[in-house]
């Protein structure tokens, strides 16, 4: 299944994770110029939402909207004009834990806001509200391979519709007892604006190919980044982000669940 290759441009990137507060600060960490030092991830209520929605915004919504907005801003594109793919292995862990706990009480009074925040597409729904977009927005999962699957889906959209597409990937830990069955390392979000034809200001070009192999996935040399990469599905983007930060040609192999996604990176 190596026949079809997809060519897309990377117009802009945003990142937020432990010790990786934004793209500018993270670039020297990703290139290896400065060592990675972990630090708590600060999630702020999305300023684009109404006061009530801001107050009730859950961690996954805060993280996804933060990186999504940052990437689109850097791209200079109108956020309302972009179709978007939101990729995450699961729904908002804090919300799921809250509902599961509420369901063990005698009255089972689930909060209506909690309930609508429990859907996997809550971040993509709030994104549509925040940027007033009527464009196609999808919320997808491929368990640990969610980033690569989301990248493939976003690239397919960019190529088949010949227009830029926003990819947002994010994963956060469960606060309650599910953490033991599904440990996730830190909170990590990444957003990439892909285009079918790279603009003058593009960061790089990607050639994507699905490959029939299940090993030799790319890792990170820095032990802190490697811990993140192997422990958080969204952080499986790190080898690609490192290549983009280094502005050097690279061949990366990402886990696609069944098979691999080979990504050839060429700097612009």
């Amino acid at each position, binding site marked *: *299944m190596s026949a*079809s290759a997809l060519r897309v441009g990377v117009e802009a990137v945003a990142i937020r994770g432990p010790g990786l507060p934004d793209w500018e600060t993270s670039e020297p960490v990703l290139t290896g110029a400065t060592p990675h030092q972990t630090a708590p991830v600060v999630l702020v209520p999305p300023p684009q939402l109404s006061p009530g929605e801001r107050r009730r915004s859950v961690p996954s919504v805060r993280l996804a909207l933060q990186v999504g907005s940052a990437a689109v801003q850097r791209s200079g594109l109108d956020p309302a004009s972009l179709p978007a793919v939101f990729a995450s*292995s*699961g*729904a908002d862990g804090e919300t*799921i834990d809250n*509902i*599961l706990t509420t*369901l*063990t009480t005698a009255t*089972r*009074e*689930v*909060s*209506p806001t909690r*309930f*609508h*925040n*429990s*859907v*996997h*597409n*809550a971040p*993509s*729904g*709030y994104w*549509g*509200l925040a940027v*007033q*977009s*009527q*464009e*196609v*927005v*999808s*919320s*997808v*999962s*491929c*368990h640990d391979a*969610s980033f690569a*699957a989301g990248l*493939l*889906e976003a690239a*397919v*959209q960019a*190529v*088949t519709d010949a227009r830029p597409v926003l990819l947002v990937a994010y994963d956060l830990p469960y606060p*309650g*007892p*599910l953490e*033991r*069955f*599904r440990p996730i390392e830190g909170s990590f979000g990444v957003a990439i604006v892909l285009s079918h034809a790279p603009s003058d200001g593009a960061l790089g070009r990607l050639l994507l190919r*699905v490959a*029939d192999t299940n090993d030799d996935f790319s890792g990170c040399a820095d032990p802190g980044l490697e811990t993140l990469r192997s422990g958080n599905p969204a952080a499986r983007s790190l080898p690609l982000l490192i290549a983009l930060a280094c502005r050097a040609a690279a061949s990366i192999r990402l886990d*696609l*669940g*069944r*098979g691999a996604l080979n990504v050839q990176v060429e700097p612009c």
Partner: protein
Amino acid sequence: MRPLALSSACIASSLGLGLAATLAAVERGVSGLRPCRFETVGLPTYVGETPGLDGSQIDGPLARFDCRNNRLARLALAQDGFEAAVETAKDRYGPKRIGVFLGTSTSGILQAEQAYRHRDEAGQLIGHIDYAGTQSTFSLAEFVLTLLGVCGPSLVVSSACASTTKVFAAAARMIEAGLCDAAIVGGADSLCLTTLYGFNALQLLAAEPCRPFDAERQGLSIGEAAGFALLERAERVAGEHVCLLGVGESSDAHHMSAPRPDGAGAVLSMSRALVASGLRPDQIDYINLHGTATRIGDAAEDHAVVTVFGDATPCSSTKGHTGHTLGASGIVEAIIAMLAIRHGLIPGSPHTLARDPDLRCHYVTDARPAQVRRVLSNSFGFGGSNASLILGRAA
């Protein structure tokens, strides 16, 4: 878009197991909704429970996938010769060239709901949970990939109640881009406390069987279902098949759990589906509405349908048959649309007694025979996620 044949399909819902049982129920106006006796739920509501799920444990090599949602998926996959059709497709294309694009909103969460009742002093669960096999959003696809032995590109789309309509769009794009030759689309959503108590909290559950487009409608009834379809390029399969002719998607940008009252997002998804299919509104013979029987939802959809189609095109919501099967509603209604085309039938709307005089679309309450060449089916979900698909005979 180039038509994609639904070369095989299977279904399990409260209407019964398989296409024949589903068709018979739709032809005769039979509803699968019953007073809720599910698990320990004490809500005055009706549900559409799928027969044969209790005691259908998944054991052996696939035991790690055992949960209500995957049992439901397995029950559907065992119907209508679907697994044999997948085997034929594997021989034709190879297992790596068959993609799997499925939808679910809650996966196997019932198991976690039950496990949370048994915790130790530290708050840890006493029982074990196989997260990847049953709780992960992707667990349904992991199960289906493993059960059917296919390994093409795969995704779970979890865009609430629009999920299994959006999977048709994902599959069509992947086939168009050359990443696979065929695709298994569909999905499953099973009864759980989260959705029953959640919709109850939103005051959207009816105390009676749901009555879409009725003047006295009170809200929705929850159902559970699984359904799957095999999509292949129409020119590559022999025989006459109902085809996917177009899909449209849009976002409301209005509210997390309420539709835009003017139906503008729905207008956009239906219009995009028409553009993708190259069809005019008057070429659609029947519209399967999202129609969940909420006051505002039905009114918004009515407005949108009349805006795009006028008030002559026959339409109905089949939620009175199956209940609202949430993430599975898209595939359930796509399969009902397929049956309507194959068997020349406009489905009706059991429990809808008196049509709301304020709603203007041509709403059909009793199933009737008719020539149905093309159907548009709507699915709208939380987060303002809208999707519409068009099925019909390829020109």
